[in-house]
């Protein structure tokens, strides 16, 4: 209603369209073009159509990396939802003041960079200054040991990174959940726990799914944590892309890997929206 005629609406869209066009579409097209480029005799590349870089991806090493990345990020999405969802639900049951304070605190967490988080966890899991020393102190371990580099360390740090995002993504749906729905469930004989599982979770399912997808895509792009806290076998596709682009100067192959990553993210988003769109 507040939008006027079709013309004004079109005019209003122009600035944002130009921005998105220049800053998102152009680099995207360049990446796609580069991924198909052809190698010349002097070792340089020129635009053309060659599937050589994708053929190079289609080896078990890279496919395994892609599957590992997708699996790791799916696990991170699930773990961070398992932590964030109950927390957010309890948070919405507190007074508005408590809720605001917590949200400010969580927003502040987002200002911590991935680098900072990665190195903090490296210290936390180290042999000399890490939590292993606490295990020794309480008598659970003989002597201190390093917990990094390991897959667990990568997982822990990425979940740590993802939980604040999950909370903020879940908060709108949970705080808008009609309280009379849970009350109705209670009057119909369901305990608070059963109400949580039979009403709260199903009603907020769309938010759970969209948060999960967002976390999946977000952590798929993490490049610091796997390098700092993991061994090369824990590196994700994003790390390999950086590796190709920055250290091997193989832009076409890096682009091809980026396109693969994009296809993975795209198909996950598509599959999930398709799956939930049919039911919700």
């Amino acid at each position, binding site marked *: 209603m507040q939008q006027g005629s079709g013309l004004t609406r079109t005019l209003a869209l122009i600035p944002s369209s130009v921005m998105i066009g220049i800053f998102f579409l152009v680099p995207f097209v360049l990446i796609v073009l580069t991924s198909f480029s052809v190698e010349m005799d002097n070792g340089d590349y020129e635009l053309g159509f060659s599937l050589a870089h994708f053929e190079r991806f289609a080896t078990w090493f890279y496919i395994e990396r892609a599957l590992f990345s997708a699996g790791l990020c799916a696990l991170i999405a699930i773990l961070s939802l398992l932590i964030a969802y109950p927390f957010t639900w309890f948070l919405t049951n507190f007074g508005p003041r408590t809720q605001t304070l917590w949200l400010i605190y969580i927003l502040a967490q987002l200002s911590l960079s991935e680098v900072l988080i990665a190195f903090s966890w490296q210290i936390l899991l180290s042999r000399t200054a890490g939590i292993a020393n606490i295990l020794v102190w309480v008598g659970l371990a003989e002597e201190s040991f390093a917990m990094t580099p390991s897959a667990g360390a990568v997982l822990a740090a990425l979940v740590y990174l993802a939980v604040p995002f999950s909370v903020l993504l879940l908060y709108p749906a949970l705080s808008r959940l009609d309280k*009379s*729905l849970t009350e109705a469930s209670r*009057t*119909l*004989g*369901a305990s608070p726990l059963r109400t949580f599982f039979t009403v709260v979770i199903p009603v907020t399912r769309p938010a759970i799914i969209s948060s999960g997808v967002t976390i999946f895509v977000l952590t798929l792009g993490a490049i610091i944590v796997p390098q700092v806290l993991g061994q090369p076998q824990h590196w994700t596709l994003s790390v390999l892309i950086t590796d190709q682009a920055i250290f091997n100067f193989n832009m076409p192959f890096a682009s091809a890997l980026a396109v693969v990553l994009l296809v993975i993210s795209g198909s996950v988003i598509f599959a999930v929206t398709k799956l939930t769109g049919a039911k919700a």
Partner: protein
Amino acid sequence: MSGLKIEGVTKKFGSLTAVEDVNLHFTAGEMICFLGPSGCGKTTLLRMIAGLEDPTNGTISFDGQDLTHVPVHQRDIGMVFQSFALFPHLSVAENITYAMRIRGHSRSDREDRATELLDMMRLPGLGDRRISQLSGGQKQRVAIARALALNPKIFLLDEPMSALDANLREAMQIELRKLQQELGITTVVVTHDQTEAMTMADEIVVMGRAKVLQTGSPMEIYKKPIDRFVAGFIGSSNLLPATLTGDNSVRVGAAELRVGENRAGQGAGADVLLMTRPEEVFVRAAKGDTPANAVTGTVTFIRDIGATIEILVDCDGHEVVSVLTPKDWPDVKVGDAVTVEMPESACMVLAA
């Protein structure tokens, strides 16, 4: 000790007292209406019966069993919420049988009961619909069916008609009352609509400012309101300032009137209010001598709506309304001097 008993119940939210020292006792199988303006504490009282709020003080019991500290899900109640609170992720039939699913009834039992309840609520064949596909009236029927699925002992409804269209409301009131009588279930309805309360209730509890002001059958409350607040809330009333001249007589301006009921609790000389109901006072064209039990005034407005005629009379600056049937039509017009007859039995004295 059968029935619903509320003893000394008080609810405070911080410094705010929502319900103050309420004592009520209802026979099992009755339909009770909590009636009052918004913010009078009626919903809080209902929520305490449901167990959704804990009383600060006092006890609530049913059939001798103390319910005060029993958790909501262990009380044998069915409740219809103002917004209906139907589960959007479940179908109509799944909503209706939710309580049965929680209690572990078999699928075939649930299906049979859903069909039975849908027939009872005149919604046959709608079991597979989504909640979002229902109209307001259908949603309400589903909410009622859901609350009654396990034959609860107490049936609670919070402003059940407020989300419905005006014309649907009256039909639903009658239907709900019939259903309640058929099932013989103890029912408490919260409403701010006096017609709704009068239509459905065995007992009306009039509330105002966190307290119970009056309890009684609809007619008792209509005929004998305890004060001007109740009189104003139930039906319309004419209030004239008067002075008590005896136990059963008052002076209004120059006129002496005998009154049927004195509820002011005060003696001669006290300033009181004379209350009459519009349909119990009669306008007559003034003919020299004033008849007994009447006041004089001037017609200011006539509203003829066919079935009834409303005459507004200005009596010394106070408005008196008379509602007459066409056969009692006094043949007066706006500006005429008239007398308003107030039969002794129609006159009540309330505290000013």
